[in-house]
């Protein structure tokens, strides 16, 4: 049974032009111990999906789903309190801009202290402070922060983005979650620290059996760190499957275009040649095309594409396209 199972998740909001569906029937499932990459351009609704799972979207967003289950529990039918309990302990989230995700007015040490599991504290009142400090020190060491004294006393603005992100991760692992949602965890972090963060994720995944939903637009990270991926375009899932299969043979034209936009230096790129991209740009939310949202930009689009394609399956590889990039001889 998958740990997180999402079927037809839609996220809508009311605008002056009527109700707009920012995320359209997205499917996602994560098995225990898996690292799943959720890939798409900025604005494709990846972060919305993550926030919908966490239940931290504003009131103006309307979330509906056929199934939004975590470990067999329907998240949408939980009360706010039950959900909060689940959030801190079972599902954790790491955000895009670590520095702004920490309270600027509070020391890092105190914020770490707040996210410690207090019910695990079995010592008397007078030893609690010692216990907490030891726990915090342990957590910080676990994420690779050596000078815990200084970090604990600092305010977020005194630390670098990389250290802040590590602190965020330390907070999330305080409760030993089973699912970690990482929403573009390294976009604002310098290159050296990026690899550290990913290694940390890998370590958590291997040692603590944490499943990770890695949201990113960086295909190179996806290729090297994830086992399977789901590709989103404009709020629709276009393709999902094992990472190596998709990177070897994508079925959806959008995935193909994404992969082609990655420079491969072994293929002898011509000097100053242009990288392949799709023509046009991502449509704005007010002017979403009907049917397959890639339609107007798709090189293979035909009349049939004004209807939303059904999810199809071919050897453990899901895609939604009327005209997939499969050799015609092969039965799809």
């Amino acid at each position, binding site marked *: 049974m998958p740990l997180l199972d999402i079927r037809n998740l839609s996220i809508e909001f009311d605008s002056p032009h009527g109700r707009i569906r920012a995320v359209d029937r997205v499917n996602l499932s994560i098995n225990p111990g898996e690292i799943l990459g959720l890939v798409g351009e900025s604005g494709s609704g990846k972060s919305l999906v993550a926030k919908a799972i*966490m239940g*931290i979207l504003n009131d103006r967003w309307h979330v509906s789903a056929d199934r939004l289950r975590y470990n067999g529990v329907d998240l949408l039918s939980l009360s706010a309190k039950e959900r909060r309990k689940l*959030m*801190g*302990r079972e599902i954790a*989230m790491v955000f895009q801009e670590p520095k702004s995700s920490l*309270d*600027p007015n509070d020391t890092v040490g105190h914020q770490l202290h707040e*996210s410690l599991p207090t019910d695990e504290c079995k010592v008397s009142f007078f030893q609690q402070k010692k216990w907490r400090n030891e726990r915090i020190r342990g957590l910080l060491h676990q994420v690779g922060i050596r000078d815990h004294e200084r970090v604990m006393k600092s305010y977020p*603005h005194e630390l670098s983005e990389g250290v802040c992100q590590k602190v965020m991760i330390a907070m999330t692992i305080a409760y030993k979650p089973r699912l970690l949602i990482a929403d573009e965890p390294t976009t604002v972090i310098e290159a050296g620290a990026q690899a550290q963060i990913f290694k940390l994720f890998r370590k958590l995944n291997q040692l603590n059996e944490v499943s990770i939903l890695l949201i990113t637009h960086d295909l190179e990270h996806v290729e090297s760190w994830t086992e399977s991926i789901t590709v989103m375009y404009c709020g629709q899932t276009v393709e999902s499957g094992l990472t190596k299969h998709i990177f070897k043979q994508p079925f959806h034209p959008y995935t193909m275009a994404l992969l082609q936009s990655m420079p491969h230096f072994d293929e002898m790129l011509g000097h100053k040649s242009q990288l392949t991209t799709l023509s046009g740009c991502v449509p704005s939310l007010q002017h979403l095309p009907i049917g397959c949202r890639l339609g107007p930009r798709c090189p293979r689009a035909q009349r049939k594409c004004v209807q939303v394609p059904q999810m199809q399956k071919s050897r453990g590889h899901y895609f939604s396209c009327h005209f997939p990039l499969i050799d015609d001889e092969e039965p799809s």
Partner: protein
Amino acid sequence: MWFYIVRRFNLFVLTVAVLYFLVFLMLVALPGDLATNISGQQQASPAQLAELTQTYQLDKNWFNQYISFINQRIHGNFGISFTTNQPIYDEILKFLPATIELCVYATLVALIVGFPLGMLAAIQSQKPADFMVLGVSLIGYSIPVFWLGVIAIMYFGLELQWLPVAGRLNLLYQIEPITGFTLIDIWLSNLEYKQLAYRDAFAHLVMPTLTLAVIPATMVMRITRTAVREELNANYIKASQSRGLSPATIMFRHALPNAMQPIISQLSLQLSTLLTSAMVTEVIFSWPGIGNWLIDAIYQRDYPVISAGLLICAGFIILVSVLTDVVLIATTPKRRSAIDGSS
């Protein structure tokens, strides 16, 4: 930290110097002799005139005059009033506590009413409670103080006769003014009927305080609402929600402390509004405070008193804004750091 406090202090000194210069210019420009305007001595005898020339260095150039003007004022010599011939300094000491008392109580009421309502509106954003608070604050903000005061006097004072319409205390109670604050003076006095005196003082306070509190309360409401709402949309609130912290912890440990900074800085800017409406309120309720005194002085063309009132009120506002700055620097970790604190 100390560096910034010293810097703010310098700013304070400079601003006050400019303020003194403007007041000095005003005294020079006003009709009449500078010696009369600056000291309040009317029909001075030749001996007095010589003494005044000596004290204010009126025979020297304008810069010396300005410096000695500052010197005299700082040492508490505000001259004497045209109308009462009393030293203005003594009059200030007599009237200022009444104003401070009124303003402090009104501010307290405004905070007690405005702050929770603003928070409520921010939490219930875009819901009926929010619209209610917004509507009430808009109505309160639009009601002119003088009209509200007069209506209150007409209804509660004259028609229902619940509350006294003027003054601070009934003449029956002979309270020795020690501090100038009625409630403290009653406490310090050895009256046998303190309870009655307290009740009377409160009855006198109710209408002016509430009238004066209306506008600050609506401002506190709106400022709190905006600030808290902004903080609740911040990233770190989302992050702490995702960590499963309880709404109360998020509100009181994270959102509020962060919202306090914009609230404090905005409120300190609104202090001048409070002071102006306090003056109007004092006139309406015949409250023997500095505003009443100053407006009387304006009617009487009592130049030394006008200049003294200007110095006191403007100086108070400058002082408070500098203190707010210091408080903000002390409570905002980010501003304490070297780069960001320089602004």
